[in-house]
C-alpha cells in the first residue's frame, strides 16, 4: 500500500497547543511524533529566589485547569521540607478542595471535550443541539465542582485561600453545610453520567500499560500515599526521581518521562482506578460494575466511564468530609524556615504531579522541580498511537485522523502543563 502522513496541525479540545505527526510507509507506521509547541514559560527557573510562601500561588499558574493540583503538590512538598504535618480538619478541607477540582475537571472533559467524539460532533455546542439535556446536566455538574472550589478557595481558577501550612480562612460547619444539597444532586447525576457513557461504542484496544498511581492505606488517593505500579513498584514519593527520568525530544517543548528500566508508563484515571479499585466507596464500585468495568480497566477509550466513576467518588468523599467537619481553631499551622529539601506528589485529575523544592535558611527557593502528569504520559501517547494505527491503516484519512485525535483526547492532556499539544499529521508520504 502507498505511504502517507496523518497530520493534525492543531489538536482540538485539549488544554494547550500541540500537534500530531504520523508517518506511514510500506504499510507500517514508521514514526509517531507528539509535538508540543506550547511556548515554554520557565517556571522552575523563576521560582529560584522566590519565597516558599509564594510557591502555591506561582505554581498554580502552570495550569488554569488544575491549579488546585499545583497548590496541593506545592504545599505538601514545602511542608515536607519544613517538617510540618497538616492533619485533622485542615487536611480534610484540602481533600474537599481537591474533590471540587476533580469534579470540575472531569465533568469538563467528559461533556465538553470527550463525549462529542463518541457521538460524532466537532464540539459540545453542536452536540447540545441534539442532546441539550445531557449538556445542561454536564454543565451543572461542572458547576457543582467549581462551586466547591470557589467556596473554599475564593475563586474557581487560581484559588487564593491555599497556603503552606493550611488556609488563610476556614469555613464554619454551617457555612459548609450549604453545599450539601447540590452535591446530593451531583451524586445522582454522576451515577447517570456513568450509565450514559457506558453506552458508547468503544474500539477494541487494550494496551499492556504499566499503571503508576498513589496508593494510600485507607483512602482513594488524592493528596498522599506511596507510589505503586502494576509491575510491582512500591516506593515512597522521595524516591520518585530514582525510578523515573525525564528526557527531551527535539520536536517538543515538553519533557518526556519514562521509567528508568521499563520505559513508558501511564498515569491518570485508568491507573488510579486499576490500582485502587478496592479503595473506592461501594457506590462507585457498583456504578463501575453496572457500566461493565472490572476492577482493572485497560481500554483508554473507556477512561470516560472511569472519570465518571471518579466524579462519583469525589462527590461521596466531599459529602462525608462535610458531614464530619469540625471547624479548626486556627486556619494554618505555624511555620519556621530552615534549609531543607522537600517532596510532594498528589493526584491531579490527569495523574500524579511531582514537586521537589530546595529552600535556604530564609525560606527562599534554591531549586524547584515540577513533573506534570501530561509530561509523564507523553511517551505512552506515542506508543498508543503507533499500536492503534498499525492494524487500522486501511481506514480513510479523515476517519483515521479523527480516531487519532480521540486517542489523544482519551488522556485529557494538559499541554500548558506539559510544557513547561494538539495538531494530527498522518504522513503516508
Amino acid at each position, binding site marked *: 500500500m502507498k505511504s502517507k502522513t496523518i497530520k493534525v496541525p*492543531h*489538536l*482540538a*479540545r485539549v*488544554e*494547550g497547543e500541540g500537534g500530531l505527526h504520523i508517518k506511514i510507509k510500506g504499510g507500517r507506521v514508521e514514526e509517531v511524533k507528539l509535538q508540543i*509547541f*506550547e*511556548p*515554554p*514559560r*520557565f517556571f*522552575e*527557573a*523563576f521560582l529560584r529566589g*522566590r*519565597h516558599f510562601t*509564594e510557591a502555591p*500561588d506561582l505554581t498554580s*499558574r502552570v*495550569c*488554569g*485547569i488544575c*491549579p488546585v493540583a499545583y497548590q496541593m503538590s506545592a504545599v505538601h512538598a514545602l511542608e515536607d521540607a519544613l517538617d510540618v504535618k497538616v492533619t485533622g480538619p485542615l487536611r480534610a478541607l484540602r481533600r474537599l478542595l481537591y474533590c471540587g477540582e476533580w469534579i470540575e475537571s472531569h465533568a469538563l472533559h467528559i461533556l*465538553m471535550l470527550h463525549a462529542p467524539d463518541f457521538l460524532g460532533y*466537532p*464540539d*459540545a*455546542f*453542536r452536540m*447540545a443541539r441534539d442532546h*441539550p439535556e445531557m*449538556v*445542561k446536566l454536564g*454543565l*451543572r455538574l*461542572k*458547576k457543582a465542582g*467549581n462551586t466547591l472550589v470557589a467556596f473554599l478557595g*475564593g475563586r474557581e*481558577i*487560581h484559588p*487564593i*485561600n491555599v*497556603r503552606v501550612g493550611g488556609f*488563610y*480562612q476556614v469555613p464554619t460547619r454551617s457555612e459548609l453545610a450549604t453545599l450539601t444539597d447540590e452535591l446530593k444532586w451531583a451524586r445522582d447525576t454522576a451515577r447517570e453520567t456513568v450509565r450514559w457513557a457506558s453506552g458508547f461504542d468503544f474500539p477494541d484496544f487494550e494496551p499492556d500499560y504499566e499503571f503508576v498511581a498513589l496508593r494510600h492505606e485507607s483512602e482513594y488517593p488524592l493528596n498522599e500515599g506511596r507510589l505503586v505500579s502494576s509491575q510491582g513498584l512500591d516506593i515512597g514519593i522521595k524516591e520518585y526521581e530514582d525510578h523515573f527520568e*525525564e528526557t*527531551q*525530544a*527535539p520536536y*517538543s*517543548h515538553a*519533557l518526556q518521562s519514562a521509567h528508568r528500566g521499563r520505559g513508558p508508563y501511564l498515569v491518570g484515571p485508568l491507573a488510579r482506578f486499576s490500582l485502587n479499585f478496592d479503595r473506592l466507596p461501594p457506590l462507585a464500585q457498583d456504578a463501575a460494575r453496572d457500566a461493565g468495568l472490572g476492577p482493572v480497566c485497560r481500554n483508554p477509550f473507556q477512561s470516560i466511564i472511569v472519570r465518571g466513576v471518579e466524579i462519583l467518588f469525589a462527590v461521596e468523599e466531599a459529602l462525608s468530609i462535610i458531614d464530619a467537619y469540625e471547624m479548626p481553631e486556627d*486556619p494554618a499551622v505555624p511555620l519556621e524556615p530552615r534549609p531543607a529539601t522537600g517532596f510532594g506528589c498528589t493526584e491531579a485529575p490527569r495523574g500524579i504531579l511531582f514537586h521537589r523544592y530546595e529552600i535556604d535558611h530564609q525560606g527562599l527557593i534554591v531549586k524547584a522541580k515540577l513533573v506534570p502528569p501530561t509530561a509523564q504520559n507523553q511517551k505512552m501517547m506515542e506508543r498508543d498511537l503507533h499500536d492503534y494505527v498499525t492494524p487500522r491503516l486501511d481506514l480513510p484519512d479523515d476517519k483515521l485522523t*479523527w480516531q487519532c*485525535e480521540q486517542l489523544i483526547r482519551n488522556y485529557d492532556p*494538559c499541554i*500548558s502543563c506539559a510544557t*513547561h499539544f494538539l495538531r494530527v499529521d498522518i504522513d503516508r508520504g
Partner: protein
Amino acid sequence: MAKKKPKLAVWKFASCDGCQLTLLDCEDELVTLAGAVEIAYFVEASRSHVRGPYDLSLVDGSITTLHDADLVQEVRRTSKVLVTLGACATAGGIQTLRNFTDVEEYAAAVYPRPEYIETLKTSTPVSAHVPVDCEVRGCPPNKGQLLSVVGAYLQGRAPVLPQYSVCLECKLRGNICVLVARGLPCMGPVTMAGCGALCPTYHRACYACFGPKETPNTASLSGRFKGLKLKEDQLVRLFRTFYAGAEAFRQESEAHEK
C-alpha cells in the same frame, strides 16, 4: 431572513489556558452565548474551525516566540474587535520574569537540551505588537467582567470596566482593612478592582493579580510597607508577580533592586 450571528474567535498564546477556561466556566451563560454568536475558532473547545474575518476575537496569552509575534498580526488583521483576556495578554504574565534576566540561563536551568527551545528573550503583551480594543484584566479574569465585555460588543456599545483600586471593593464589601488592622502588606491600594476584593475577604493581603490601577502611587505604598519592616528584596517580589511587566510595577520593582 434571520440576522447573521457575529463570529467569535478565541486565540491562545503563552499562558496557562485559565482565561479561555473562564469562558467555559460560565456554566449558566454558555449555552445562551453559544446561541448568540457563531463560535468560529476556539481550538480548546472545538475541532471545527471557520475562516475569518471574525467580529470579536478574545486573546489569551503573551507573545514569547517569533511564530506568535507573526500570528498576532494575523489575528489583528482578521478581527474587527480584539479583546485581550487576562494578565498574560495584557501585561506579559508571570513569564515576564524572564525580562529581568537572561532567558538562555532560564532555558538551561529547565531543559537538558536548551538548544531545542525556541523562545524570545522577552514576554510581551499583545498591545506591544498590535492595537488592542479592550483589555480585560486579572489572573484569572472575573467571569462577570468577561461576560459584560462580550455582551457590550454584541450590543454594539463600549464596555465599561472599573479603573479604581481594590480598596473601594473592600469598602463596598465592608471588609476590615488588612493593611491597617493586621499589618499585612496588601497591594490593594495600587491594584485595579475587578476581583471583588477576594484576598482581603479571606483575611489575606491582595497580591495584585489584576495589575496596577489607574495612576497608582506605588512609591508611597512601598514606603508604608517599609514601615512594616519589609526589606528591599521583599518589595521587589511584591511588585514582580503576574503584572511584573506593567509599567508602574516594573518601575517600582526596579527601584528596589540593588
